[in-house]
């Protein structure tokens, strides 16, 4: 079994905590300051820049735009999480990567019908880590379909 099997990456956008299955993640790029090209963007599609990654330019999405989350971190100071997409690699920006956590540490968290409807298209699952609710990141809501690494 792979060492990343069953592990989650925990990160933050503003004050809000998120998790993503580590299987989906290609790499976490902490220092993006010299890699991002903000001239190459398509804001109407949520793409805020492109990023040079392993000799290829890949699209970079900022989820705070869609989620309307206030972020105190400048775009150029953010961390990029690179994912596999069906059309190639792409990345999304986060304020802070906190930890890698075993899936068994998370507890299920119920969303009432009211919250489910309000979050439709943004997120559908929330899990609890030490009683803090974390949103399960669903990359397909932000860019083309993602495949496991």
């Amino acid at each position, binding site marked *: 079994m792979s060492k990343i099997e069953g592990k989650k990456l925990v990160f933050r956008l503003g004050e809000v905590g998120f998790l993503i299955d580590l299987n989906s993640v290609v790499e976490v790029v902490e220092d993006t300051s010299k890699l991002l090209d903000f001239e190459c963007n398509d804001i109407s599609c949520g793409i805020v820049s492109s990023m040079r990654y392993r000799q290829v330019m890949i699209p970079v999405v900022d989820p705070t735009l869609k989620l309307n989350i206030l972020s105190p971190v400048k775009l150029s100071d953010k961390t990029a999480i690179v994912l596999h997409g069906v059309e190639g690699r792409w990345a999304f920006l986060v304020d802070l990567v906190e930890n890698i956590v075993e899936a068994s540490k998370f507890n299920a968290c119920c969303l009432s019908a009211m919250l489910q409807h*309000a979050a439709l298209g*943004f997120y559908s699952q929330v899990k609890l880590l030490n009683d803090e609710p974390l949103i399960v990141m669903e990359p397909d809501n932000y860019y083309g379909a993602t495949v496991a690494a």
Partner: protein
Amino acid sequence: MKKVGLFHIGEFAFALSLECIVKIVQSAKLYKFPSLPMLVSGVLVNDNSLVPLIDSVCVYGAKVTQSELASSYQVLVSTEYGVVALPANLSGKIVATTKGEFLELTDDVDIIGAVGKFLFASDEYYILDVNSLAKEMTQGIWQSQPDTGGARRHQ
């Protein structure tokens, strides 16, 4: 309704039927969350479920500081749309309805969820119908849904 819970938040006084009160907790940690329904200021966790907390400023014009809010009660009520929480300061009490008097609302009152008043010890409390309040919270959800699913490649 045999008993009512009487609460204040800021200057706003409200009454809730005891039957709809699930639990009263104090100083529950409030989390900011994206894409919440209208009239909701955040969520709290109760019994492994997320509970939306009604925005007292938005709904009732109750001006309370963050520190007051942090130390307040959260009254969890059961509605047709799930459990929701209302903030209340620490002066809450439960009384039998026979100890007070029910009054009708005047036409000029426009408070979300208010269906009448309860007079107790010379104080008037707005009686809140939690189902209409929760229904009001769902308004606008349908209009706010994303239509494209976010960032996608150009076709």
